[in-house]
């Protein structure tokens, strides 16, 4: 694994005083953290603690109510115009978003397209790659995820594990700087989980992509992460290296949570 210079380098992701409410329900409050370029961070914690909301805010699927989020030093919500800070327009958001990829719990492949169609769609339409370039990239990525022979299949003809591999390939086809993984193995049959996690570990160790993952797979969190953040009630209650967090958690809540999930 490439060593990560955590001090000095500008953070790839920075949350500063972020707040998110759904009606009266405060999901995130005063949330601040940074993720360094190339760093692998896993978010763990009970359901409803706001972990997935963090990924959705980064992907601009939700808007935050207060605070700022920056990706690679660029704000998601504001942009500079004539020396003044104004709300970001569509184009600005798209430019920042292009650097981020996301893999969803439910895969969300486009069922009206073949595997190839899913993989070449965004590179041709968004990055402006030619059909041949996008096709070559699609083939290369499908080989990487072990599905080189399924390029002309439809998503519905694939197993859940295979669909998720295609979804990972689809996200990678955009050459993102940041990859968000939202409980990517939660919808998979148990025997398919290990394969997908192994694939992610391989990708993590062979690229310098910054990873932010929400996961309930503690083994994966321990092996994959440089840092683990424990969430509860919309706050980070513990933020530590996995060796420390999983063996000697400081916070009582973390101890209870790990106890519950490991003894499941």
């Amino acid at each position, binding site marked *: 694994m490439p060593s990560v210079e955590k001090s000095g380098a500008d953070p790839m992701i920075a949350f500063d005083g972020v707040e998110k409410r759904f009606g009266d329900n405060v999901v995130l409050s005063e949330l601040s953290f940074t993720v360094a370029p190339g760093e692998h961070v896993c978010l763990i914690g009970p359901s409803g603690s706001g972990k997935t909301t963090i990924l959705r805010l980064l*992907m*601009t*699927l939700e808007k935050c109510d207060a605070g700022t989020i920056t990706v690679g030093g660029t704000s998601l919500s504001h942009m500079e115009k004539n020396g003044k800070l104004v709300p970001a327009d569509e184009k600005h958001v*798209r430019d920042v*978003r*292009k650097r*981020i*990829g*996301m893999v*969803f719990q*439910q895969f*969300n*492949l*486009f*069922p*009206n*397209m073949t595997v190839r169609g899913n993989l070449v*769609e*965004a590179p041709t*339409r*968004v990055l402006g790659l030619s059909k041949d370039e996008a096709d070559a990239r699609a083939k290369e990525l499908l080989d990487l995820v072990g599905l080189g022979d399924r390029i002309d299949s439809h998503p519905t003809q694939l197993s859940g594990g295979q669909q998720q591999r295609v979804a990972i390939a*689809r*996200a990678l086809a*955009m050459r993102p700087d940041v990859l968000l993984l939202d409980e990517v193995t939660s919808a998979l049959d148990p025997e398919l989980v290990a394969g997908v996690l192994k694939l992610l570990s391989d990708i993590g160790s062979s690229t310098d992509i910054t990873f932010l993952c929400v996961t309930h797979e503690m083994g994966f969190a321990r092996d994959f992460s440089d840092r683990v953040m424990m969430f509860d009630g919309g706050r980070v209650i513990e933020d530590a290296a996995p060796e420390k967090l999983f063996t000697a958690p400081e916070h009582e809540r973390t101890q209870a949570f790990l106890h519950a999930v490991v003894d499941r």
Partner: protein
Amino acid sequence: MNVWDWNFAGQIIPALLNGLRITLIATVLGSLIAFVLGLVLAILGRGPRPVRIVVRAIVEFIRSTPLLVQVYFLFFVLPAFGVVLPALTVGVLALGVHYATYTSEVYRAGIDAVPRGQWEAATALSLPRTRVWTGVVLPQAIPRVLPALGNYVISMFKETPLLIGIGVLDIVGQVREVGGQSFRYVEAYTLAGLLFLLLSYPASLAVRRLERRRAVR
């Protein structure tokens, strides 16, 4: 005098077929307008709030007034604004716009049935808005609603006789003509009814087959 005269029935068939031609033209062109305009209304209906409210109001207004009133309105009011159109054109417009408000609801249901995850995946890939519609959402929504659209085509087909009000000689218009000349109505109306049945029934069977095929998938 017999109730049914085969000779007379034979004589009026060409006139009825001529009427059928007009009925089919009105139905096909009206459907095209209803399909396209309905889709536009459905997409605008998901736009920003002010657009949504205006679209909603137009749709409700058209759905809440009778088609016959709209046909007369267009036929007699448009010329007052200097727009003089042939009766058939006015009829096609009225049918198309009226049914567009129904097809827009059909499309809306189809669009709503596309899972949110599809929109989110498209956003995560930064696909441009128009491409999200044309490449992701509509290709999934439209096949689902084809049977419902087909049913509206059939009901439009059966409503074209309303256009005789503005002098369009569809099947029923022809029946009235020949009936008026000969004072024989039994043959003409019977044959007209049969022609409608001959086309509507196979069409509705086809729609039902389409429905079943979609249900199996």
